[in-house]
């Protein structure tokens, strides 16, 4: 127990006091011994092979699918390189981006996307590594993508709102990634020590940063899905995230909503009393202060008609007076700056 408490202090030192880098979820090159590195490669391999098979199949049907997957890998790379300050922890962390790719292109292809982003990061940024690629694919690609995808689909199947489903998908994808990273890290570095105590220490070390960043990733995923839904619903249909029927139903609801508020609502509103009458006048009446008639009552007699007549006459007179300014030349022509033109210059300008 004492060691766990000490673990929390170390976690705070590691997670808060030290400036965390922008790629905290990757297991660094060389961190895992050979047997564990090989084991995680073996775990990742079937998912990767399944993703490649689906990629090949779908790119035969649609030639733009492979470039799309490549560009999604670039997007995941950029997203997972963007540090977001976490004010609660006083550190920087970054989203994984695998939740959104799992939702958009499916979890198996998302494993390939993650693998591509991880290879480039390992080679050029030293985030992760080639020897730990299998472990990183399992935590980010497999756990992140599948958790994100399954959460989104499960919540949508019970008619949960799309933004809420995307939020939960991003949240759980992020947390699942860090859970798996803790398992891999603890198993890899434990040596002769017991697995579980070290696992809890690593998990606790992640909590100050990853608990809030999971919420941020959820919000980000929801924002991304809703932006796509608003701007390009056709892409979500193409990616099989939503169905035509869903767009038609939501479109019909929006049209009905608009018709209701533009047509029916004003007629209904006319029957309703305003807040002045319902509250202020009512309370004043209860206190014995009856409202008085206004000095000039616009709702009585032909007064508005008379005012409109006067306004029309004044407006017509003013318009008629200034109309001649537009069609006739008044006074001597002047150059820019106010200097008087000579008759010759005026003649040249007129072309005569």
């Amino acid at each position, binding site marked *: 127990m004492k*060691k766990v408490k*000490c673990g929390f*202090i*170390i976690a705070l*030192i*590691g997670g808060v006091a*030290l*400036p965390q*880098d922008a790629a905290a979820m990757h297991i*660094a*090159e*060389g*961190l*895992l011994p*050979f047997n564990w590195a090989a084991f995680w490669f073996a775990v990742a391999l079937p998912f990767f092979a399944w993703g*490649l098979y689906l*990629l*090949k199949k779908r790119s*035969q049907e649609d030639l*733009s699918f*492979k*470039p*799309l*997957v*490549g*560009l999604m*890998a*670039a*997007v995941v*790379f*950029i*997203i997972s390189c*963007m540090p*977001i*300050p976490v*004010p609660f922890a006083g550190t920087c962390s970054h989203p994984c981006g695998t939740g*959104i790719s799992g939702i*958009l292109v499916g979890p198996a292809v998302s494993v*390939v996307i993650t693998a*591509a*982003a991880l*290879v*480039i990061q390992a*080679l*050029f*940024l*030293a*985030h992760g*590594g*080639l020897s730990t690629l299998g472990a990183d694919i399992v935590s980010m690609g497999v756990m992140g993508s599948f958790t994100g995808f399954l959460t989104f689909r499960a919540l949508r199947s019970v008619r949960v709102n799309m933004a809420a489903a995307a939020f939960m998908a991003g949240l759980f994808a992020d947390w699942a990634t860090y859970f798996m990273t803790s398992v891999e890290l603890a198993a890899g*570095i434990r040596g002769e020590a017991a697995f579980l*105590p070290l696992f809890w*220490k*690593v998990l606790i070390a992640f909590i100050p940063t990853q608990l809030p960043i999971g919420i941020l990733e959820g*919000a*980000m995923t929801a*924002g991304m899905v*809703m*932006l796509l839904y608003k*701007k390009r619903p056709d892409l979500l249909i193409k990616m099989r995230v939503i169905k035509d029927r869903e767009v038609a139903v939501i479109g019909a609801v929006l049209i009905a909503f608009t018709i209701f508020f533009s047509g029916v609502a004003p007629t209904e509103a006319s029957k309703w009393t305003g807040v002045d009458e319902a509250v202020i006048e009512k309370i004043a009446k209860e206190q014995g202060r009856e409202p008085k008639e206004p000095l000039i009552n616009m709702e009585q007699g032909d007064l508005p008609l008379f005012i409109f007549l006067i306004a029309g006459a004044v407006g017509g007179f003013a318009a008629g007076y200034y109309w001649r300014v537009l069609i006739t030349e008044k006074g001597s022509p002047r150059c820019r700056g106010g200097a008087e033109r000579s008759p010759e210059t005026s003649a040249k300008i007129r072309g005569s």
Partner: protein
Amino acid sequence: MHLLEYYASDHWLARIDARIKLLVTLIVLIMVLSYQGVSFQLLVAALSLTLIMSMKIPWRLFLLRFSEPLLIVLVVLLLKIFFSGHDPLFSFDILGFQLTAYREGLAEGVAIGSRIMAAISLMAVLVYATPFPELMAALSWLKIPRGFIEILLYAYRYIFVLFEEAMVIYQAQKNRLGYANFRNRLSSFGVLTGSLILKAFEQSQTLSTAMVQRGYDGNMPLFQSRPFRSSEIFLSCLVVTAMGILWRI
């Protein structure tokens, strides 16, 4: 993004075939991971760092590349020193809790740290001495699935395009106080990433149309490697044998 672009084209290692460099790197990497001890790993780290220094890598890039691994080494070292082992080395009080460092933990931490440093510096040598298309061709030669290599090539090409796009959007958002507080920051980041995905969709459509017009049939042509030179094969065999002997000792 400058980290992605650095390539020591003048160095003698850059003239060696990428397939040989990749193969030797992978073999030495496996030796580093499977070695039980510290000396071989420290030797590999020292040799690799010497090679990197001879490539005249700018200090800023070097520090950027090694900052994250060094931080991880530090955290792992702390975890191992204070939570692994039985033989106490020293102890002190922190916030009312007594922390004890263990001899076995220190040994394990140093072993893991040296393994990380060796592996990271080895990979850095490979990457700084090999251009990306050649590295991809070498991966293809190692029978890595072609579809995956194509995805890597697309991703590498469009990282720069999308990164520039992201920076333009980020500056525009920042100029409009999009990152003034935490709530704005969150919303702006959502819009930024969503816009990137929209751009990726649009770019992929444009790209595939352009490629189909130029005869794209679903497979991208890869960089063609030249035949091996006997001197390269001899050098690689020498390096692997020497490393193997050192690994066995």
